[in-house]
């Protein structure tokens, strides 16, 4: 991938630089909330980026990605509840649990295609939601408060706002770098090849579903990481965060930014969550604007914001 100077790259660079210096701005102006808000945005951006890997590059429309946020979060929450506070245990468990769940769900779901795939991933996520609601030891529907954030010894203090912010930002950049490496590797090219023409790739001798499954599991694992971060950010985990509308919101973030564009989900998440925050300050009826906006973006701006930027560049 050759780096070009065009509008979309400039915008991406500006946004990335803005995210890096944000804590400085927050310190200077004393506006702590902007840091809190953007920590949450960054975590959701990581989740959206993981969804983009399978949706944008793999052609797999998962309608159940909120489940991984929940699984990663519950791994941290449950271990903390049982007295295991070390992040060196909590986080690997969160990743492995998400990966295992993705492996089982993926193996079953990938037998189907198209809208059946959308529905079966939704069904599994709803099952995860009901299981979480049924865990009365861990608060059931009321959720579980996490009194102490993951402990990484003297390495990093998650209770420190700025340190936690940079940890999340590091995870986001790391996640995007990983995805960039994947889509430009031979493996990634095969996955993208399967998306555009499955039969041809099968004919050449690639076992399409195996490639898809690996991609699905990687995506789920990254999203599980976002879940672990989110649980630490909210100090709380509940089944409400796994409901199907949350999966829908993640899809919206990806599409807002531009599906199949590396930085699209980050831009889309910033746009979606800021817009939600902003509209809800103007009016309680913010969905009255958000809903039709979504329809319009789907109808007229198929590449999302990144697509618009690209068009501007060409035009």
């Amino acid at each position: 991938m050759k780096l070009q100077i065009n509008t979309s790259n400039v915008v991406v660079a500006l946004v990335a630089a803005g995210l890096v210096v944000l804590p400085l701005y927050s310190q200077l102006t004393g506006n702590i909330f902007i840091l809190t808000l953007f920590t949450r945005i960054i975590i959701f951006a990581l989740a959206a980026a993981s969804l983009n890997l399978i949706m944008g590059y793999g052609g797999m429309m998962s309608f159940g990605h909120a489940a991984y946020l929940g699984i990663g979060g519950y791994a941290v929450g449950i271990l903390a509840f049982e007295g295991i506070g070390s992040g060196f245990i909590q986080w690997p468990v969160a990743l492995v649990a998400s990966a295992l769940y993705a492996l089982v769900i993926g193996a079953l779901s990938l037998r189907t295609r198209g809208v059946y795939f959308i529905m079966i991933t939704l069904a599994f996520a709803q099952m995860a939601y009901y299981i979480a609601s049924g865990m009365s030891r861990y608060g059931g529907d009321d959720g579980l408060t996490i009194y102490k954030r993951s402990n990484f010894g003297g390495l990093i203090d998650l209770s420190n706002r700025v340190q936690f912010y940079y940890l999340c930002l590091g995870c986001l950049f790391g996640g995007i770098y990983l995805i960039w490496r994947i889509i430009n590797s031979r493996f990634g090219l095969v996955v993208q090849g399967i998306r555009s023409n499955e039969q041809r790739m099968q004919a050449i001798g690639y076992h399409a579903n195996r490639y898809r499954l690996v991609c699905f599991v990687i995506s789920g694992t990254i999203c599980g990481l976002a879940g672990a971060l989110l649980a630490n950010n909210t100090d709380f985990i509940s089944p409400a965060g796994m409901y199907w509308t949350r999966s829908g919101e993640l899809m919206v973030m990806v599409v807002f930014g531009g599906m199949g564009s590396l930085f699209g989900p980050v831009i889309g998440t910033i746009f979606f969550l800021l817009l939600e925050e902003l509209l809800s300050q103007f009016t309680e009826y913010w969905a009255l604007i958000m809903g039709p906006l979504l329809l319009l973006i789907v109808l007229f701006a198929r590449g999302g914001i990144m697509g618009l930027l690209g068009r501007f560049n060409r035009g």
Partner: protein
Amino acid sequence: MVLVEQSLNGLQFGLLLFLLAAGLTLVFGIMDFVNLAHGSLYMMGAYFAATFTAWTGSFILGVLLALGATLLLGIVLEFVALRHLYGRDHLDQVLATFGLILFFNDAVRLIWGPAGLALPLPAWLTVPVQIIPGVYYPAYRLSIIIVALAVAALLYVVVMRTRIGMLIRAGASNREMIGALGINIKLLFTLVFGLGAALAGLAGLMQAPILTVQIGMGENILILAFVIIVIGGIGSIRGAFLAAIFVGMIDTLGRAFLPDLLRTVLSSAAASTAAPALSSMLIYLLMAIVLVVRPEGLFPAAKR
């Protein structure tokens, strides 16, 4: 006795789900269009019925007006927004109609307020009826069963015995072909969408006196309707009918008998908590199993 009554409960719930699923599967099968806003039409049907019944003072008149209003709304919606989404990929459709759900929920809140409405039944529908000696069943639930069965029969006749039905079937199996035959496909699509909307509205207003008329009422049940058409095979009315009754039965009988069943193996307290979670999972589990075994549902419409 208990089994008879619980089976009737299951049948009634299943038939109601069928009304919702039938419209969904028609639109899906013929236009290849995923319409999440189907649940919003269901909600609008209920709101219209409550409003018109209050205006006219007559339940029957209110219901008829509401059916017409939902049909009209469906046609307008199709004409203004949704027809531009035919031929797009399913993701676009899911997102755009997800946006419509947001819109409809807030529009309803703006117009009717957040508190919800009531749709009271006329007195002759509120009494329990003795169906077999010793078993009483609510008259209104019985009337749901009758109306839904009548609609199912009517749909069957329309789809299998009329020219429109023939076109619909042709459209479901090969869209290009009926276009090539010189049929006004746009008009057919609009009509089918309107029909689907009216069916959703009917389901909503039938359910309204049992449940309430409230914002977001379409969302939970929409997911169930999707489960049904996926189990039944997309585009198949027959599949939707059988799957709906199956799901209604499993859901109701699961709730009725699972707790007692679990109590024989678990402690009473553990069983009472585990049972509802398990019975609500049963349906999703059923769908997962069906899809794993038959990735295109039980009764796939003819291959495209």
